[in-house]
């Protein structure tokens, strides 16, 4: 899986130069850009991020504040500091605050890229597993009394989460900004995951204090409940066009592949409930502005993927930003 590296600097030229310089590493990581600490924190809440590279001097929330917030809420994410005002005292403070590296400007982009790649490798130094059910595997971690950080990706909706084990005990979990027991239940409700193991755990505080087996049982119960609710919410599983959601997704995928080919940049056609609220709000605004309901939308959030939203089919198409956007809009708007 491609990892996201969040670059934070108030100097747009710097960000764009780094983005361009890192383009040749796109098979190892993709970059997200934030103009200051507040924007960076918004990204961290919304997007799975593997590493943060931040400047120190920025308006609103500066690099030190950002570092402290990351250490408190996203302790598994390593932070590299880059600064044009480097002093030994500043470096000492940054390292004491949890930064894994301190880079003084000017620097070679290649060197920074190598540092990033090396850090990202550590995320999976204990190995990776694909298409597994997490329960049995996690019980093995408990039996082996392992200390590790496990990053999981749910295969249907692409959700990502992290579990922190210290000597076989599940101490903490995180999904976006959600932490502790609730995040653990969310992860345990995932049926089909890919996971990577890091043989280290930065978290030492136990936020969960419960037996893993009881957490897994409760997670499974919640998962069943959620599936039942989803089935009910879709009114027997029908979209506005009259087909079942899975048929509608298949129809959208076929339409794209048959007309524009399999390499047109449409990476995934999914049902993603995270978009439901936003689509409804945009549609309601459109109706108030006498434009009618939302039929189709293309959204660029500045991430490695853009999104095409098809409200009538409850479908979300994740696309490469370099896809033929207008052709896709025309095709799906027909």
């Amino acid at each position, binding site marked *: 899986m491609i990892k996201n590296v969040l670059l934070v600097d108030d*100097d747009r030229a710097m960000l764009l130069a780094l983005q361009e310089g890192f383009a040749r590493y796109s098979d190892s990581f993709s970059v997200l850009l934030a103009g200051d600490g507040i924007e960076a924190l918004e990204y961290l809440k919304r997007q799975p991020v593997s590493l943060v590279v931040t400047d120190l001097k920025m308006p609103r929330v500066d690099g030190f504040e950002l570092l402290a917030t990351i250490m408190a809420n996203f302790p598994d994410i390593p932070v590299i500091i880059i600064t044009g005002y480097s002093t030994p005292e500043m470096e000492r403070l940054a390292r004491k605050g949890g930064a894994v590296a301190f880079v003084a400007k000017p*620097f070679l982009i290649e060197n920074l890229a190598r540092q990033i790649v090396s850090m990202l490798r550590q995320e999976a130094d204990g190995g990776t597993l694909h298409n597994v059910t997490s329960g049995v595997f996690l019980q093995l971690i408990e039996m082996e009394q392992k200390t590790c950080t496990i990053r999981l990706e749910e295969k249907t909706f692409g959700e990502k989460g992290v579990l922190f084990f210290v000597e076989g005990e599940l101490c903490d979990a995180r999904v976006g900004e959600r932490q502790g027991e609730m995040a653990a239940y969310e992860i345990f409700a995932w049926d089909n995951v890919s996971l990577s193991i890091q043989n280290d755990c930065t978290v030492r505080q136990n936020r969960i204090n419960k037996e893993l087996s009881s957490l897994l049982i409760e997670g499974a119960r919640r998962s069943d409940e959620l599936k039942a609710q989803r089935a009910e919410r879709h009114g027997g599983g029908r979209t506005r066009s009259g087909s079942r959601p899975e048929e509608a997704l298949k129809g959208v995928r076929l339409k794209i592949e048959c007309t524009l080919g399999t390499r047109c940049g449409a990476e995934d056609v999914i049902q993603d409930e995270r978009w439901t609220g936003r689509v409804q709000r945009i549609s309601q605004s459109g109706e108030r502005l006498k434009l009618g309901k939302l039929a*189709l939308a293309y959204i660029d959030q*500045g991430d490695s993927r853009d999104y095409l939203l098809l409200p009538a089919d409850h479908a979300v198409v994740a696309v490469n930003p370099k896809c033929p956007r207008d052709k896709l*809009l025309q095709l799906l708007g027909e």
Partner: protein
Amino acid sequence: MSALFDDLLAVAGVKGVMFFSAAGELLFEKSGAGGMDKAAAPDWQALLVSLDGAREADLIFEIGRLYIRKAEEGVLVVTMGRIAPAAMIRLNCDVLLSELKSRKGSGPLFEDAKPKRKKGLGRFFQLP
């Protein structure tokens, strides 16, 4: 300042252009059909909020289409018919936003803005 928006308004299918500050305040509005209904301002703001920070959005509704671009200077909204030369409109928006950026701090749209300190790339990177 309004002349800046003329090229965009001249593109076939474009019905109007609005420019909001980052805080959602309407800074500029021009359309070919008598202007925007002022009472609709909160609805436009609600729409921008519903985009949840998206950098760019192309929204196709049942009876109209919007192209929205978020930039450092504010948010540009282009209203158009369902069939419009989208690529041409995006290109015009690129040009317009670049022009607005270069005028930041000097025009009536940006009276309160201070010019940004420029930094050269040589300050950041060593030559290999």
